[in-house]
């Protein structure tokens, strides 16, 4: 191990922890947004579904960096509230990834065989029960791979938070680099860390898919 990495290991550890924390909170919130938006659009709730479609369209056409800057600078200026870089990044990652997740989940919901829904209704379940017990579990389980793909994307995206001075892995690495100036070593090292984290999540996703995917 190189001495620079060892001497600053607690910086990298704290950064990695923050990266994982931001990713985890954003994944939870983003998934919640994704499920709700996907359901609203799946059910074609009159006006709300239109608004959700607009939101998804907007997020899919916007770069993450601009969404981040928007949440950090523009939204607080417009709505007159104070935010921290940390929560602004969590907010932007959640709404950004939520839009992409909702598209994946919606395609999963739509792939559920209509006969299953009819069978559920025929056996006396209410429509809400059919949604909760049949459509959602089957629909979501068919789209595990793209959902995990979005999670991996999100983890990589968290590096962008360093631009608004969030102290996550990339941010801390840049700070260390500013002090000792060993860019090749430090960037190579955090690239490796991201690689390991992303591959671990992908592996977990593959296991999840093998365990839970709907076999047809």
């Amino acid at each position, binding site marked *: 191990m190189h001495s620079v990495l060892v001497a600053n290991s607690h910086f990298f550890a704290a950064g990695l922890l923050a990266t994982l924390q931001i990713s985890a909170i954003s994944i939870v919130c983003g998934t919640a947004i994704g499920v709700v938006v996907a359901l609203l659009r799946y059910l074609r709730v009159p006006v709300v579904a239109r608004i959700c479609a607009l939101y998804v369209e*907007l997020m*899919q*056409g*916007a*770069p*993450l*960096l*601009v*969404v981040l*800057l*928007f949440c950090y*600078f*523009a*939204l607080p*200026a*417009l709505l007159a509230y104070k935010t921290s870089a940390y929560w602004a990044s969590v907010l932007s990652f959640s709404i950004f990834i939520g839009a992409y997740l909702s598209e994946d989940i919606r395609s999963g919901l739509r792939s559920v065989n209509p006969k299953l829904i009819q069978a559920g209704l025929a056996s006396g379940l209410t429509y809400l029960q059919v949604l909760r017990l049949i459509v959602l579990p089957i629909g979501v389980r068919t789209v595990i791979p793209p959902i995990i793909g979005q999670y*991996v994307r999100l983890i*990589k*995206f968290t*590096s*962008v938070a*360093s*631009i608004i001075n969030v102290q996550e892995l*990339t941010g801390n690495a*840049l700070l260390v*680099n500013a002090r000792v100036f060993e*860019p*090749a070593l430090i*960037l*190579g090292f*955090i*690239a490796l860390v*991201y*690689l390991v984290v*992303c*591959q671990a999540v992908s592996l977990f996703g593959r296991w999840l898919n093998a365990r839970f995917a709907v076999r047809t």
Partner: protein
Amino acid sequence: MHRDLIVSGFITTVELASISLILATMLGVVIGTCGATGPRGLRVFALGWVELIRSIPLLIHMYIWYMALAMLKLPAFVCATLALSIYSSAYVAEVVRAGILGLPAGQAKAGLACGLTQFQTLRLIVYPQVLRRILPSLASVFSQLIKDSSLASVIAVADITYQAGALDGLTFRTFEVYTMTLVLYLVLVSIVNRLLGMLVGASLRSSAHASAAKSSKELRDA
């Protein structure tokens, strides 16, 4: 004066995105083809390369070219182009590989059996069919690339996001500036999507035309 900033930023974004798009496509097609049809060693290398490139955030790619390889003394625009091209090429390669593997194996074998060389088989038989199938996923990779190009602003490439920051500093019209930036990206992405959608439509029409012609010929022969 503000208009000049916006226009120059927009042009830089278009330049950066279009150059990277071409480079990423070329690189991605080569890597994807190696990953699908190359000899075993090359195939493993291509797969590993794609996994490696995709697992590292684009921002880190940018910093690696800009800071870690600073001894090359590349201008920021070139660094951003290289980072964006290499990063996106991994996604293009995945799409191309999946497209080639999705093609019935008989197609390439028939080409080889007719005495075409490996390269001719790819060029005349495999690529035209693969291109039609992968255009939609390619379109989403391309619009991703355009959006990702905003990260170049971090290494001081004066693209539209960078100019938005400058404009915000000049005018303090934060909300207007960032809304405008969002809209400009939306416009750019939807233009590219529209163009590729037209391409998809045209290729579908031509293939439908071809298959219609073929079936009528079969009817005549029968």
